[in-house]
């Protein structure tokens, strides 16, 4: 199936709020998940006779399980504070991409079936019967949201559209309209152990190849151990790090850091994936099942620390949810969490972000770096949405902003931030997060990247920035594909640990002969 042609939006000097143009993105429809994919997930693959009842029932079920959904559907006053905050609205001008309007797609139905005024005076409060047309709108626009939470920063009640999008996708799944991309990946990660569906032997082969490459390159036998029982650290990293460019450069960086610090570490074939697309679909049990692989691997390998590689939504799930879902963390006093806690080393946060680990090692002098090795680069840093607005690093609020920057500045000499209203908590999503990183949504991805591309363009022009540092596998994949449409070179995109990898000083062992 061919994807429709579209125009790449024009990059202006500043990020501009467009005039509303209705329906510009209503044609977008991500591929539907076919029968085998839906079967595996336990969802129907087509609308049955009773789809409407199923949808309303599911909505009622979610309203009883999630306070966020219930409060957020009630509390909105249509003030308009969020209307110009979504990168998809800024890039498409489609009003249904304004956060409040995206929420209203569900709120209109909620009001009709679950509130008194909506039952009595639907027109007055904008309540509507659930129709196939509305369901199609849900499918279209809940897959034009990357669940980046930028709107929730600016909402006076903290309404997070991501929560509504997740609920919307969950309901769609239950009536038989699953998204092919996300559900296929959820199948692969549960059946094979990673999102790319790479079998164990292929992984071993790749790691061996990488070890040879590093040794040829540096003369140092840096290892990439996998399934090593009794290692100190279990590294959980997105599977893209094993096979994709520029991701793999960061994997090499992590390996060099562990090597230089003398920390024994291992990967796991069973848990060769940090990503957890269960988050995107708002299904707690799926997200839990996917996260349980990490707990299982940690218990089986007997590791003392769990470290997470460069991946935005994975870090959200790891940092914010792993303790809840799987007991990876501290403070649990039930047998389930104690079983793992007593194995973990309390001297370290669990889980720990690779940037926290590397930054500590460099600051304490355990790992030596020479930033001048990156002097060909002028670097800027993109705060990934899930790291920025849904997690933390270090002990202080905002550590998720300062620690990666500290780390970057310790390995490069030339660094410039992008404009203040486009970084930190106000960062713009790359445009490909939250289950949108698929070719059938390319128009959404390209247009949604407009605000970030604009901000990047400004530091390229003013500060000669030539490297965009990232800590997210989705950001890396999205930017390498999409930034060239705005005239940037795809090689300017890479991981923070790609920079570390270049600057790190390794002790070359004396030659035997």
């Amino acid at each position: 199936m061919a994807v429709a042609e579209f125009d790449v939006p024009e990059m202006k000097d500043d990020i501009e709020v467009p005039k509303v143009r209705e329906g510009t993105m209503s044609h977008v429809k991500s591929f539907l998940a076919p029968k085998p994919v839906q079967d595996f997930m336990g969802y129907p693959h087509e609308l049955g006779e009773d789809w409407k009842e199923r949808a309303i029932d599911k909505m009622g079920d979610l309203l009883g399980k999630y306070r966020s959904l219930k409060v957020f559907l009630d509390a909105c006053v249509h003030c308009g504070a969020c209307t110009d905050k979504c990168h998809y609205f800024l890039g498409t001008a489609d009003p249904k991409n304004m956060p409040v309007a995206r929420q209203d797609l569900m709120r209109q139905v909620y009001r009709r079936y679950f509130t008194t005024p909506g039952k009595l005076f639907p027109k007055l409060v904008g309540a509507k019967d659930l129709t196939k047309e509305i369901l199609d709108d849900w499918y279209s626009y809940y897959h034009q949201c990357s669940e980046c939470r930028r709107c929730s920063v600016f909402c006076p009640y903290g309404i997070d559209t991501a929560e509504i999008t997740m609920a919307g996708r969950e309901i769609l799944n239950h009536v038989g309209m699953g998204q092919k991309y996300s559900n296929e990946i959820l199948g692969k990660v549960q059946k094979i152990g990673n999102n790319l569906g790479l079998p164990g032997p292929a992984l071993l082969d790749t790691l061996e190849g990488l070890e040879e490459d590093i040794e040829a390159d540096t003369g140092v036998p840096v290892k990439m151990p996998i399934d090593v029982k009794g290692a100190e650290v279990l590294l959980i990293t997105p599977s893209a790090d094993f096979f994709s460019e520029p991701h793999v450069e960061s994997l090499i960086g992590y390996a060099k850091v562990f090597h230089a610090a003398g920390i024994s570490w291992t990967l796991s074939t069973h848990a060769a994936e940090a990503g957890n697309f269960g988050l995107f679909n708002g299904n707690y049990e799926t997200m839990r099942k996917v996260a349980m692989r990490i707990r299982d691997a940690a218990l089986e390998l007997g590791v003392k620390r769990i470290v997470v590689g460069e991946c935005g939504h994975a870090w959200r799930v790891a940092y914010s949810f792993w303790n809840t879902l799987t007991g990876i963390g501290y403070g649990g006093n039930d047998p389930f969490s104690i079983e793992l806690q007593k194995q973990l080393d309390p001297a370290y946060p669990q889980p720990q972000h690779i940037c926290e680990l590397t930054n500590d090692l460099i600051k304490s002098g355990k790992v030596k770096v020479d930033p001048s090795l990156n002097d060909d680069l002028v670097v800027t840093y993109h705060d990934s949405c899930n790291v920025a607005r849904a997690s933390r690093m270090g002990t202080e609020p905002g550590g998720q902003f300062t620690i990666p920057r500290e780390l970057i500045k310790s390995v490069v000499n030339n660094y410039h931030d992008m404009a203040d209203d486009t970084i930190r908590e106000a960062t713009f999503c790359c445009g490909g997060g939250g289950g949108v990183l698929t070719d059938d949504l390319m128009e959404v991805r390209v247009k949604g990247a407009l605000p970030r591309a604009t901000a990047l363009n400004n530091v390229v022009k003013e500060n000669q920035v030539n490297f965009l540092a990232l800590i997210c596998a989705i950001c890396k994949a999205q930017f390498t594909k999409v930034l060239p449409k705005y005239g940037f070179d795809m090689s300017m995109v890479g991981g923070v640990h790609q920079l570390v990898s270049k600057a790190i000083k390794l002790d070359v062992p004396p030659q035997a002969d």
Partner: protein
Amino acid sequence: MSTVTMIYAGMFYIATLLLVVGLVYKIFDYSRTPAPLLIPTTPAPTTQKGVVYRMAKEVVLFESLFKSNKWIWAFGWLFHFGLFLVLARHLRYFTQPVWFWVDIVQPFGKYASIMMVLGLAGLLARRFVVDRVRYISTPSDYLMLVLLLGIGLSGMLMTFVAHTDIISLKEFIMGLMYFDVQPVPQDPILLAHLAMVALLMAIFPISKLLHAPGLFFSPTRNQADNPREHRHVAAWAARLDQNN
């Protein structure tokens, strides 16, 4: 007792009942609904004390709205703070003797009505002028502002232009409070003012006015950011742990 008095007394009893029962039910409903995952919008405070401070800034200063849009913030804050002072001033109709601080607030409360009405007018204007806000506005969004403007303007008329018999009004209200109904003053402006207030009270728990209690239950604002240190599990989710 005149028919008008009976209607108004009945109206206020029903409106108060709807307001109290509706709000109590909603607050009960929000508190019994679990929040299974920690989803504070970060950076977030790491302690409960920090959460109270963050919430106080949201409630008193509308901090997030300030970050978002200075116009909405200015109009919204003028309206809400004006309304707060006006309401405080109105306590003198409900207390005998009048609490000392209500006397202090009295003159401010009088002029705060101007803030309130200006804020409301600004918010209403935005619904017509800004295309994005126009797109999302439903009839009830306009009517809610019109209702509040009606209340504010009728109140100002009685304060600044055509004074009403506030002695009798206070007797009517105190009578309602002690279930000893006294005649309501038959001033058309006052009757309109009271009817609109009763309507506002009645629809409070079933309308978007729920943003007031809702804010306190918003997980993105009221949760501490401490997931690595504390295990947070909802009751329905904890059952999943048993099966492992």
